[in-house]
């Protein structure tokens, strides 16, 4: 009997704890995206808030001395409790990027409900402007903005970066992190170039072709396209299937050998003859030259700007540890003297369904 009473009481108490959220959904401010700007030494926070009634979003803006202060001040416009766990992205406006993202990002690292793998973007205008972009008088949905980060998997000319990657890379050897730049035309939002951060500040930007070269160098490139032109073969458009890059020191510690293997398929050609096996060898060489030039110029651009995009600092630390201990404090100076020897090998794995180019048939 005593046991039965205990079980019954336990069931009642447990069932009372299973009644749902302590704060109802309509009492929460469901934040789907956050934009941060800096105006007159004040942080301006713009958030996208989900409307539960019609599945749309609204924009709210608040100002404060710090990011958290500004976010907290959003409460003046709504009695609801802010909820950041469903935030899809954080956009740092151009003013924040120039001033230093580290000052704005601390809250998102420290906050106990923050999502470390939330997508981050840098804007070439104010974040407020990006988040206020409308199409047919409706805000561009947050899901679409988040999906832009997926374009790196499809087009291979933009990168995708999370808060975790940005902070970890910035604090690691070389202190360099890459973040996609988000832009607006006023009627649409799109990803353009890539911002290269050094110590959390934008040091330079990479164009879409340079971003493709960077992705190849970190063996993450897929889906990117490039065109090689030649008098004999016309325009050859290659589509990258995947890349594999190895980086190693050459004869000296300032010589770095970069070996890149690119597996491609032929997307289109304007050759006016039937393509023979030996023609593929020539095409591979032509495509390899284009890639090599692109990669060489990208590396030169980044390292002249003092950005260690290839993590040669980490390579030195792990492969030449004693040498690294000597130069660690002056790495930025040593980095300028690095000489890169780039070798590219292209393998055309698939030539498509067509035997004879359309140009020949016509």
């Amino acid at each position, binding site marked *: 009997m005593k046991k039965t009473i205990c079980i019954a009481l336990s069931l009642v108490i447990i069932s009372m704890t299973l009644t749902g959220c302590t704060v109802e959904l309509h009492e929460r401010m469901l934040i789907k995206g956050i934009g941060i700007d800096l105006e007159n030494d004040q942080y301006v926070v713009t958030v996208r808030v989900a409307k539960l009634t019609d599945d749309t979003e609204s924009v709210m803006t608040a100002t404060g001395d710090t990011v958290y202060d500004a976010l907290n001040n959003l409460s003046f416009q709504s009695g609801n409790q802010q909820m950041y*766990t469903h935030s899809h992205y954080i956009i740092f406006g151009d003013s924040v990027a120039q001033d230093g993202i580290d000052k704005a990002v601390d809250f998102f*690292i420290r906050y*106990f409900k*923050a*999502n*470390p*793998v939330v997508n981050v973007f840098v804007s070439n205008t104010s974040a407020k402007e990006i988040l206020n972009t409308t199409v047919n008088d409706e805000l561009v949905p947050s899901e679409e903005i988040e999906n832009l980060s997926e374009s790196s998997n499809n087009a291979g000319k933009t990168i995708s970066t999370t808060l*975790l990657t940005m*902070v*970890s*890379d910035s*604090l*690691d050897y070389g202190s360099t992190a890459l973040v996609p730049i988000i832009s607006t035309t006023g009627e649409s939002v799109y990803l353009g170039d890539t911002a290269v951060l050094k110590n959390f500040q934008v040091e330079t930007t990479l164009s879409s072709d340079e971003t493709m070269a960077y992705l190849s160098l970190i063996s993450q490139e897929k889906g990117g396209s490039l065109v090689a032109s030649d008098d004999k073969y016309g325009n050859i458009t290659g589509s990258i299937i995947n890349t594999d890059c190895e980086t190693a020191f050459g004869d000296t510690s300032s010589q770095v050998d970069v070996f890149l293997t690119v597996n491609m398929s032929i997307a289109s050609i304007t050759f006016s003859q039937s393509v023979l096996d030996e023609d593929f060898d020539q095409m591979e060489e032509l495509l390899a030259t284009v890639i090599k030039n692109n990669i060489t110029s990208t590396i030169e651009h980044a390292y002249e700007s003092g950005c260690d995009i290839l*993590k040669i600092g*980490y390579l030195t*630390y*792990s492969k030449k*540890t004693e040498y690294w201990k000597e130069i660690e404090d002056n790495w930025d100076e040593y980095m300028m003297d690095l000489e890169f020897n780039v070798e590219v090998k292209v393998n055309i794995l698939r030539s498509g369904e067509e035997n004879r180019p359309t140009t020949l048939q016509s």
Partner: protein
Amino acid sequence: MPLIRLKNNDMKIFDNKTLVAKILLTVYCIFFLYSIVWELTSLINMLLNTVLPYDSLWSMVIAMVLVAIYGGLKGVETVGRSGFVILFIAVSGMILMAIGVFPLINDTGSRIFFYDGYSDTVNNTINIFTRSTFLPQMVMLSSYVKKEKMARNLIIGQVACGLLIAGIFLITQLSLGEYAKIQQFPIYTLTSAIVMEPLKRMDVIFTVIWIMIAILKVTVTFLAIGKCIGETKDVNSKKIIIPVCGLIVTLVTVYLVNNEVARANILSLNLYFLLSIILGAIIPTAVLAINKPIKTKEKKI
């Protein structure tokens, strides 16, 4: 200790008739209280900084201590069976966590051993040892363990536990890289960073598993306290002494959680490690080497 036990299977470590044994058992009891306070303070501190920042400290500590006291008084069989279930949940949870963060694993998160001398490696080894070993508790509880293959099982248990924790640390470092360095609770951050879709945002579930493990450790330590008391007093007296111990650890835990300076001074990893070695290995070895084995009539499970 396991190796000595291998030769002297059916014996108690201490001869309870002597004054020295009574003093030693009291020392063990004090260490166990210290161990419980350590475990609870670490757990509550983590909960207050992560998933439950606005919840009542008192209610959390009291609830956990009550559960642990209940388990400790229930006896070894209940705790053993609960332990098996929790072990299964914990190991499954760790595996799921490792799968969930697998896409984040990057070899640039790896670091060179002894880069800044030996101190980091030594400190981390001590950290893993103190978090995973239960040697002083095992001195009291080993008489519950089946004598067949006891030494082997003890060693396997300790090594498996150490490897599991080392494995979690490794995955955390390779997944979070330098981000882990700036986090106060990197393993909790790891659970928040899970990227595999079905396992995303299940950090609360993993926290519950963590709480279960901590409560089990506290319960087992209460069980060891009960065993200490059983060696010197009658069995019924532990029904009074263990709740009193619970009250003491509750008060000390609340004080330490609220007082960061005292926490840093009292909960020293090196001190805990040193005491673990002295009470878990040196004293039992010395006592067993000097004393003649005493046959026990403990129930084996």
